[in-house]
């Protein structure tokens, strides 16, 4: 297909004595972020318990021009997190304070690291009106492995005033389920307090794979000398184990059992093995004047689990000088609940599907943030043979009306080769 498309559009090529390279020299992006969240609705402990989590991520992205038309990009990174809620997959370690959904445990699931490797290759036609891309993706963490691939095609026409694009992505993922400790062989509930005998509804998932297929379509148009817009849509289908195997659920129609202050789970969440999502988004950017630009975004999302969501954001880059740009931003998000969401003890044991994951509940969220960018087009500061082109520093504060709050710092630097 790649060869067919390439042949088909090669006849449009305009013969120029000089064609600007797609990427002049090699670029290296060094990226870092620190994320911190807290809340009281942990899904691991059935919708009630600490959601305290910190995550530090670093990535390096290398872009290499192979020739005037082709660019190879390699993106590798590692994300290390520490989570109080996942530590309570096993809350009964002997080294911590009394077992409780609001206390972190010191077990093995307290922390993990995700590593990713994401190579991509992009080819542009000589007239720069066609762009082809292919990409791969591999990521791994202790209980989850993901491998994916994709490709895309972009076509510009109308004197590069109009752009259409289509791309696809496939992810073939697999779980290594870490079930809550009370559901594992060998666990003794003889110390549990409660009425009767503790018997859970748990049985292990048979299918431990999760496949995701997505098709993305985009359309972008220059509207005036100062304004341009785009519309884009994804069609996403997921199949397989869409439940998270370590997220407990407590039923309202069975007796409760406790060890110390920790309630033993009645089951793990049960969600359908298919999900179909359609997000549709739009951007509108306006160059107000030489100091101020308006960047706006809206997205409507719908899926067949009953969730509808709206996202809108506005960023206003303000050019303070030739080198410094300040960009305050605001984002609003709201969603309805999944059909299968129940608060703790609200689900009953006869239901086919249930979850107490508050990420699938109805809520709204506000995110306030700001960033500052330093840009030196002359790359006068050098590290070895690379010149410093940009430094981006961003901060965001995220507040959900169910009590979850978070903040994130991110830092990005771009170096270019001589």
């Amino acid at each position: 297909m790649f060869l067919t498309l390439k042949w088909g559009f090669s006849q449009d090529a305009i013969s120029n004595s000089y064609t600007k390279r797609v990427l002049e020299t090699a670029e290296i992006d060094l990226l870092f972020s620190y994320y911190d969240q807290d809340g009281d609705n942990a899904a691991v402990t059935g919708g009630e318990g600490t959601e305290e989590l910190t995550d530090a991520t670093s990535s390096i992205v290398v872009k290499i021009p192979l020739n005037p038309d082709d660019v190879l990009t390699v993106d590798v990174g590692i994300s290390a997190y520490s989570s109080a809620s996942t530590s309570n997959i096993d809350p009964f370690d002997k080294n911590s304070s009394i077992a409780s959904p609001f206390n972190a445990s010191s077990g093995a699931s307290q922390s993990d690291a995700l590593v990713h490797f994401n190579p991509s290759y992009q080819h542009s036609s000589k007239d720069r009106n066609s762009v082809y891309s292919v990409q791969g993706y591999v990521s791994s963490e202790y209980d989850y492995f993901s491998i994916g691939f994709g490709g895309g095609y972009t076509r510009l026409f109308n004197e590069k005033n109009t752009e259409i694009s289509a791309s696809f992505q496939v992810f073939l993922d697999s779980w290594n389920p870490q079930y809550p400790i009370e559901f594992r062989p060998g666990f003794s509930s003889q110390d549990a307090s409660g009425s009767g005998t503790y018997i859970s509804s748990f049985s292990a998932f048979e299918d431990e794979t999760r496949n995701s297929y997505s098709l993305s379509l985009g359309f972008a148009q220059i509207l005036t000398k100062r304004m341009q817009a785009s519309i884009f849509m994804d069609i996403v289908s997921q199949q397989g184990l869409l439940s998270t195997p370590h997220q407990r659920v407590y039923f309202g129609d069975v007796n409760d059992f406790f060890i110390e202050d920790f309630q033993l789970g009645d089951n793990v969440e049960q969600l359908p093995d298919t999900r179909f999502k359609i997000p549709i988004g739009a951007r509108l950017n306006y160059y107000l004047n030489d100091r101020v630009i308006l960047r706006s975004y809206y997205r409507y999302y719908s899926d067949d689990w009953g969730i509808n969501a709206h996202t809108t954001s506005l960023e206003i880059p303000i050019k303070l000088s030739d080198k410094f740009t300040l960009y305050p931003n605001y984002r609003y998000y709201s969603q309805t609940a999944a059909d299968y969401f129940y608060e703790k003890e609200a689900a009953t044991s006869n239901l086919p599907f249930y979850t107490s994951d508050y990420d699938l509940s109805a809520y709204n969220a506000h995110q306030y943030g700001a960033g500052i960018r330093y840009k030196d087009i002359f790359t006068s500061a050098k590290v070895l043979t690379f010149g410093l082109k940009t430094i981006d520093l961003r901060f965001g504060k995220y507040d959900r009306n169910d009590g979850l709050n978070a903040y994130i710092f991110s830092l990005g630097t771009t170096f270019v080769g001589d």
Partner: protein
Amino acid sequence: MVLAVFSTSCVAVKEFDKVYLNDEEMMLSAKASERFETNFQIYREAASGANGGKSGGGCGCN
């Protein structure tokens, strides 16, 4: 229909008139520096996609 309106109602802007449109801040996609914010939003929110980011893969389970 939206596409038709967009593509027929606008006068084509010539390359030499695109100085404002070519400003880096006018880019019609999420910025590279937003990737980490997009990543945590994908984890914490049910909705994802339609922002040029990854629309699958990864468990989003912590």
